């Protein structure tokens, strides 16, 4: 029933995160944008291949969900790895637009206008 494949993948994902199942920070959402810091900090060491894959993908700003889809990795795994990259100064992070009970008319009007153009 494909059990071997599934088990293999789980082991691989577990290895990628060093056995961690939770991120060290909670500030990554699906539409948080991440961008590789370029050039990398002078103290930066050569990252593991999987981290390099992420850094290549976020040379231009990219949302966490897109990164996860393009790398074919679950969001939770990508987020744990992004925490590592953030902590070592390899990426910058932009939080999504905050949505609160008090609606942001300026934002809504921008979205309305933008949709009207497509």
């Amino acid at each position: 029933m494909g059990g071997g494949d599934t088990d293999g993948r789980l082991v691989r994902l577990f290895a990628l995160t060093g056995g961690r199942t939770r991120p060290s920070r909670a500030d990554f959402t699906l539409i948080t944008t991440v961008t590789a810091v370029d050039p990398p900090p002078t103290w930066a060491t050569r990252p593991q291949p999987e981290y390099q894959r992420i850094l290549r993908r976020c040379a231009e700003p990219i949302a966490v969900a897109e990164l996860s889809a393009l790398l074919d990795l679950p969001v939770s795994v990508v987020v744990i790895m992004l925490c590592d990259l953030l902590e070592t100064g390899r990426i910058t992070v932009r939080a999504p637009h905050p949505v609160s009970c008090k609606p942001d008319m300026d934002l809504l009007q921008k979205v309305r206008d933008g949709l009207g153009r497509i």
Partner: protein
Amino acid sequence: MAGSDAITRAAPDTVKILIAGGFGVGKTTMVGSVSEIAPLRTEESLTAAGLDVDDLDGIEEKTATTVALDFGRITISRGLILYLFGTPGQQRFWFMWNDLALGALGAVVLLDVRRPESSFAAIDFFERRGIPFVVGVNGFYGDHPYPPDEIRDALALPDHVKVLLCDARERESSRDVLIALIDQLIASAVQSNGTGRLTRPGR
């Protein structure tokens, strides 16, 4: 601080809208018809902890269930991107993916009049969480046997929730449903503001 003098490209502001509804109702079709990219798929492993015992029927030997969702993107302007997330219709676990609904501008609940009950859970979810939504009645082959008001009555929806007839395969039709949602958000904001004037957000 780390990388303070490094140059990074300005990241855009991001917002999201959820496209929800029962299995096979046309969520991914709608995402694909308005998105500027082919729908992408991402997934999350949700641990079984906290699920009702009944919900674990058939997956007793697994510690996690994988929930996949398709999403698309619309660039509103250089500095603002709208993401559309189609909630997975075949699993009952998507609501455990808390990040999915958190911070959404609102939702579109797609409805198939031949199987309206398949979208009840989504309507219920957004009502209980106070997340604004519109109902898009996806007419297969463009067929719409019932007028919107009749559907609103049948679903016992409040007056301010818009019910729209649409065809999720058509870009313009899907776009109009999204615009209706934004108009509904603007209308309720104006109402709660009381003045009818557009106000700039205080940041």
